[in-house]
């Protein structure tokens, strides 16, 4: 039976009732695959949006679409993009850094253990 919630206050159910099958030996692999495909979907959405932008800009005569393909970044632009990509990769590879980085070491030092014992 429906309750009295209006659409403004309600949420649709997000998961289907029933057992989700496990396909791989390790259930983590199923989850990772679902995450990868969700990300692939978002990249596709961004790509479509970018394509829309280029077509609109071209249609309005603000820019010839071929100029985008012919664009040669300057030395400064290349440097900015290089820096942005390093930052970007460090966010994505944070989990790798956990094993070797100097912050948040993935080990149990005597200092860490002492605090844990105390609290």
């Amino acid at each position: 039976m429906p309750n009295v919630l209006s659409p403004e206050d309600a949420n649709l159910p997000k998961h289907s009732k029933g057992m989700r099958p496990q396909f791989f030996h390790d259930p983590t692999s199923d989850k990772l695959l679902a995450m990868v495909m969700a990300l692939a979907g978002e990249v596709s959405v961004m790509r479509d949006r970018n394509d829309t932008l280029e077509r609109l800009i071209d249609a309005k005569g603000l820019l010839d679409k071929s100029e985008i393909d012919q664009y040669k970044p300057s030395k400064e632009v290349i440097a900015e993009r290089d820096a942005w990509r390093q930052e970007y990769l460090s966010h994505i590879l944070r989990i790798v850094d956990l094993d070797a980085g100097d912050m948040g070491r993935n080990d149990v030092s005597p200092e860490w253990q002492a605090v844990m014992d105390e609290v």
Partner: protein
Amino acid sequence: MQPQDYEQFAHAVLPEATADEFARQEFVKSYKLHLASQVSPKTKTVYETQVKPAFEKEHGRAPNNRHEIRKAMNGNNYYQTWSSLLRTSQEMMWKSCQVSVERQWAKLVSEAKKKSIDKPAGGTLKLDPNLKIPRYLTAVDIHCQPGGYHTEMVEDDVAPGAIFERAVYIYAMGQLGPMNDDIGASTIAYMQETFPDFTPKRILDLGCSTANSTVPYKETFPDADVFGVDVAAPMLRYAHARCETLGAEVHLSQQNAEHLNFEDGSFDLIVSHILIHETSTTAFRNIMKECYRLLSPGGVVIHVETPAYKDMDDYDAFILDWDTYNNNEPFWSKSHEIDPSQAAEEAGFDPSKSFEAMAPSAYEAAKAKRTNVFQGGDFGGGGFWYLYGAQK
């Protein structure tokens, strides 16, 4: 406005999508098409070249049936990956449709309500808040639609119907046509060819959901009284608004097809479109008995499904059976083993007047794009519908 064959017909109650929502839905459509046309066919190669030889080596014989093939394939990494991708595509499909419906939920509810008051086409809607939703629909959310057909979250909810209509289009990758009506249209085409002198006057569509298969009956037989029943109120509210929007006078009521309140002999055509596999063994028997009771002499019942396993080899049956285990379709497997002649006889029909056939898809434009196989995740791909039934 004429429907374009490359997109879903945007009638007044079809949920709208923002550019990003549309792009997300388009991605799912492409993802599914890629799986069906590029990834799925190679599961057969993997079976033939790896899994089957390994099975033969171990057992000294080939697998005997689809169950043995499934158990052997479950350990194969290509099959695991394809399955995981397919399940994920199904979940992403619902999600991509849910998001836009949730955003315009209030508007869809009020639009549907308005249509049910104005009734421009003259159809009717009768809901029964006391109807018990059968266990085969409450135990699992069929084909993974969160909340299933029946769950109502808000007063006068239509969300499950709105989500379903858009998702069916994406699921079928547009192969059901701009109006999602290919199953109904194909059945009508079959019927007109098989019973050329038959012009039904009272038509009943069982488990009609959004009435996407019901509307073509009213269009083909404008003088007939067309009825649709379903157990799910939010489907029927949406269906009613949709029929009125499309100008199709259809009389909808919330009833279980196993026990209907119509009088004996009150229909000359009863149809169902991919309903049976979502019921149960007992429910199917009850439905067939109701069909016999409700048909007038000479009347016809037709159920449309994907092909029976007896007509395909074990590998194809195994692939089509994927939904049973992986897409919340518990009755799928057994329903594909139904013997139409036996079922007709049990319900009171003369078994010599039972029939089964493969009806070609009526939607020509999509034919070229089809994968021409019946497989998990692509039930429309075969280019044919399997139908069975009986004449009283």
